[in-house]
């Protein structure tokens, strides 16, 4: 099975000014009844909303890369088994019969989730954080000698080991001040 990865970052400062999840109908369109309950009863509902949102988005990226289908159905990606600590969280996200595993980092400025198809693949993911500027590919190359971040013909990002041509599955997300790249340390193409 080919490895696929997903990530999603939200700049909480920008999210406050450009999104209002409290508007009438918004939660019903994006969350299940149980997720709505989790948000509305949380100590920090805003953090809980964006936590669940980035979990769904990162899992959607994995789903999209498996099925090749573009579908915008956030309430069809269901977060469960949420284990929430102060600065991190993990959960599973299901879409029909498919299950994804997600980890999230939580800070006052940023919420960042990564997703994979198995807990082991999730553990193997490495993430880099950069300022959200157009030269992020060069910055990534400088930070990781021997590797470059490229785009496949499909438009999906991939990390190439320069000396061997080995390709690693990657995902890029950017929002507001932040840009994050995650990749699988294991081989995308074997033999």
């Amino acid at each position, binding site marked *: 099975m080919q490895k696929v990865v997903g990530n999603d970052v939200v700049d909480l400062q920008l*999210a406050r000014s*450009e*999104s*209002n*999840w409290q*508007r*009438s*109908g*918004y939660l019903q*369109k*994006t969350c299940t009844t149980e997720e709505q309950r989790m948000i509305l009863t949380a100590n920090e509902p805003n953090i809980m909303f964006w936590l669940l*949102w980035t979990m769904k*988005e990162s899992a959607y990226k994995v789903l999209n890369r498996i099925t090749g289908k*573009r*579908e*915008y*159905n*956030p*309430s*069809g990606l269901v977060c469960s088994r949420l284990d929430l600590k102060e600065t991190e969280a993990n959960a599973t996200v299901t879409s029909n019969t498919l299950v994804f595993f997600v980890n999230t980092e939580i800070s006052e400025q940023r919420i960042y989730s990564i997703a994979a198809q198995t807990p082991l693949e999730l553990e193997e993911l490495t993430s880099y954080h950069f300022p959200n500027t157009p030269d992020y590919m060069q910055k990534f190359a400088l930070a990781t000698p021997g590797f470059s971040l490229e785009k496949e013909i499909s438009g999906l990002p991939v990390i190439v080991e320069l000396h061997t041509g080995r390709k690693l599955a990657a995902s890029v997300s950017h*929002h507001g001040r932040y840009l994050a790249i995650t990749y699988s340390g294991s081989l995308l193409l074997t033999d």
Partner: protein
Amino acid sequence: MIVELKAILTPYTEQAEALENLGEETDFIKDLQINSANLVDVVLDVEEKFGIEIDNDSMAKMLTVKAAMEIVETKLAESGR
């Protein structure tokens, strides 16, 4: 209908040229670069503007101007308008 859609989309995009040239094939994400959280706002604004309810299956497909127009027309027809 495309005039009303353009007015709804305007606050959520910074792609002035794509907005100016808005057509049936315009893609909300690829062309207008509307972020996914704001796509929910577009759906809610369309519901309010046209007095319809967009179910989740329809929302899942609402990624282009053409798809949005078809969904609005279908929902309006269903409600006998």
